[in-house]
């Protein structure tokens, strides 16, 4: 079981990204409004205002999608679909995706009800 975390920088892709999650077999996810460190420092802390130039291409706000995934094959399907929707995540300002091992979870959609 994995926790899949995806920080999506371009919020315009959110709908397509969630459609892809469902297509890949993800039955539930939580979407959190989030903000990059660079945006916060350069726009909210006057001392760092001079560094706006260095965060060009980064969106001011982003969405963080977290999801507990039972079957690790699903993670691979999500990853490959993300590549077609948002492009190569290695491009700066696209997003960050990673997984963490989950050793216990409660409250998930029952396995037999998963799509």
């Amino acid at each position, binding site marked *: 079981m994995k926790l899949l975390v995806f920080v999506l920088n371009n919020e315009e892709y959110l709908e397509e990204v969630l459609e892809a999650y469902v297509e890949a077999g993800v039955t539930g996810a939580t979407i959190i409004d989030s903000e990059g460190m660079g945006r916060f420092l350069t726009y909210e802390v*006057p*001392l*760092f*205002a*001079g*560094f706006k130039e260095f965060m060009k291409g980064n969106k001011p706000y982003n969405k963080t999608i977290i999801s507990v995934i039972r079957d690790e094959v699903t993670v691979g399907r999500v990853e490959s679909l993300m590549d077609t929707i948002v492009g190569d995540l290695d491009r700066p300002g696209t997003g960050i995706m990673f997984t963490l091992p989950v050793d216990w979870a409660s409250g998930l959609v029952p396995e037999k009800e998963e799509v």
Partner: protein
Amino acid sequence: MGGISNRLLPECIVLDLNEESKEGVIRRLVEAVDRAHSLSDAKKLMEDILEREQLASTSLGLGCAIPHAHSLSLDETVIAAARLSPPRAFDAPDGEPISLVFLIAGPESNAGLHLRLLSKLARLLHNARFRDEIRGVGNAENFCDLICRWDE
């Protein structure tokens, strides 16, 4: 290790500076940097720092400020410091008169280092014990020694 202390020479520390204006303080620090590092264009550095000041205040509050700029007049990142006596009310967000001023200047190609130094100085200056100690030192050498101790 030592990012601040490596770049802050004793001759770039001005203690108990009595200047009424922010511009006057910055000018004194630029002059000190120019003497220690033989700038290619000290006037340009002064302009670059004042231009950055126009963008937003570089005061942290707590009586501290870190004016800074990227400048073509330098090929390495340097730091200078002033302790003001008496403290002066510049444009601090909390209204507290400024008594400690650190100036950071360096080439744009070193923006990452510049940002790390700025963040580290801001973190140190947020520490009340550091501020108290630095306000109490007697001379530039002791000022440098103290920075060395904290800059680990």
